[in-house]
């Protein structure tokens, strides 16, 4: 069996009496898309923050590429190869689309303490940034101000910036949110190809996308993983139906 790239063991996080993350263990294997689903307030975003390094866990460990990264912060985990997209687009809004992508390329390159040569004339960085934009289909918007992008285009730019980092693993927090049917379908196709380059831990509400993409699905309810399995197994699991899918059928 292949070694998991990302391995969470017994992660815990409480806010006062609320157990936001309650003994979560899961793995992400090379080449797979592992979807994390669950009703609102189940603790998905909290868990993503714990994995990305923005939120310290009360206990438990995060292993990444065979290395314990639990004590590391966001910056160090990003440098180790953990790419991330946000639920609410997190971009430098005054910058052009290309500049946001170049920022990613600069982060990957690491040479940020250079003070004199114009960064937008740095061919390797700009080429890397442009290549990422081409992959998500934003090359024609490169010179546009990020603030002027549509919501869906911002989501794609987030993915492009993550790609410039050549991540070993991608954490994606609701990339489909607000994309609309056609946009969502296009991104689904794109993520389908992406998994061979970097496995994806995908938090998503769009069940069509989740069931189309995910090799494995974990269901999070009140901070606990109540089931992990293939799409079929999850569909058939009675506890999941009761806790989550059933509620959606009723609605």
């Amino acid at each position: 069996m292949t070694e998991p790239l990302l391995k969470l063991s017994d992660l815990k996080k409480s806010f006062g009496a609320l157990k936001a993350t309650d003994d979560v263990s899961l793995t992400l294997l090379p080449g797979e898309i592992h979807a994390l689903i669950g009703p609102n307030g189940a603790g998905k975003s909290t868990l993503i923050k714990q994995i990305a390094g923005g939120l310290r866990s009360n206990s438990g460990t995060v292993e990444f590429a065979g290395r314990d990264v639990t004590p590391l912060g966001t910056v160090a985990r990003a440098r180790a190869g953990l790419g991330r997209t946000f639920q609410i687009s997190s971009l430098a809004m005054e910058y052009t689309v290309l500049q946001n992508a170049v920022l990613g390329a600069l982060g990957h390159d690491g040479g940020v303490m250079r003070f004199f040569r114009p960064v937008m004339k740095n061919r390797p960085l700009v080429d890397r940034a442009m290549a990422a934009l081409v992959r998500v289909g934003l090359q024609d918007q490169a010179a546009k101000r990020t603030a002027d992008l549509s919501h869906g285009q911002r989501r794609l730019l987030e993915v492009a910036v993550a790609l410039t980092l050549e991540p070993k693993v991608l954490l994606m927090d609701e990339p489909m949110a607000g994309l609309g049917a056609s946009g969502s379908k296009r991104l689904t196709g794109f993520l389908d190809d992406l998994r061979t380059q970097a496995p994806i831990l995908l938090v998503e509400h769009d069940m069509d996308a989740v069931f189309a993409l995910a090799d494995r699905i974990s269901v999070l309810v009140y901070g606990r993983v109540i089931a992990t399995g293939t799409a079929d197994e999850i569909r058939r699991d009675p506890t999941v139906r009761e806790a989550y899918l059933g509620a959606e059928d009723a609605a």
Partner: protein
Amino acid sequence: MARETLLNIVLFALLPVTALAAFMLDEPFVITLVTKAAILALAGVGLNIALGLGGLVSFGHAAFFGLGGYAMGVLASHAQSYTPIMESPFLIEGTKSMLVIWGVAIVTGGLAALAIGALSLRTTGVYFIMITLAFGQMLYYFAISWPAYGGEDGLSIYIRNEFPGLNTLDPIQFFAIAFGVLAIVLFIASRLAKSPFGLALSAARQNAERVETVGITPFRLRLVAFVISGAITALAGALFADLNRFVSPTMFSWHTSGEIMVFVILGGVGRLFGPVAGAALYILLEHVLGGLSDFWHIYLGLLLLLVVLFARGGLIGTLAGREVAHD
């Protein structure tokens, strides 16, 4: 050519053209005013790196301005009294050389900014403003209560310091020096803004989370920006002291911090030539309105209010429009 570039060229030319015209008309006082504008603009260019690029609202840049002033005052006062600054363990003597004084001012300002920044950059928002203000006031009271260098009365330097090949007491020649320094620093600041460092620093101001997510630490960017900013403002302080041939604790006071901030805001926060436009306008208002009324600060306050309410890009923003994201 972009409108802002054109405006920058006009602003840049305005200082030497005014100085030369005053020279032709034999108006040395006007030359001194223009020199003052150039030096204050330099202080603003320093602050603008922290404030405009980095989003660091430092209310304590008088600390660096004053340190630059006292670097000049201490070195020159020892040189004019022929007493060494210290004899043991090794001998340090005063100097009248501007170049040496500038070097000392830059290093002192940079080191002070490193210490102040390392502590204050752990906070944000109002706390950052307050801590930088506190550091500035600390130095202010220290300067007042330190009798060796004049205490509250300050220090007078009788003869302006020396610059190789120039007569620094001649107003137009001293203007040339100040303007030359401003030009060099503006060039450095323009390169800095477009460099990899500038891209990341400005991104950290817009969205710190984004910068962390690509594996860059905002704190380090901000600290380096603060050091560069402090060093430039200290250099301006040394020139300002040389212009007046006088240093006093006033250079350290929070009024000075406020004034430097006013130059930047009037001219346009984050715009390369914002501090130049702001300082020139400030000197002009001080001179014109100050001649009409002793209470000219009321009108300045009104203008500042209008800029903050209706023209967020300051003078440059109003004339040249929204900043074009650099290509």
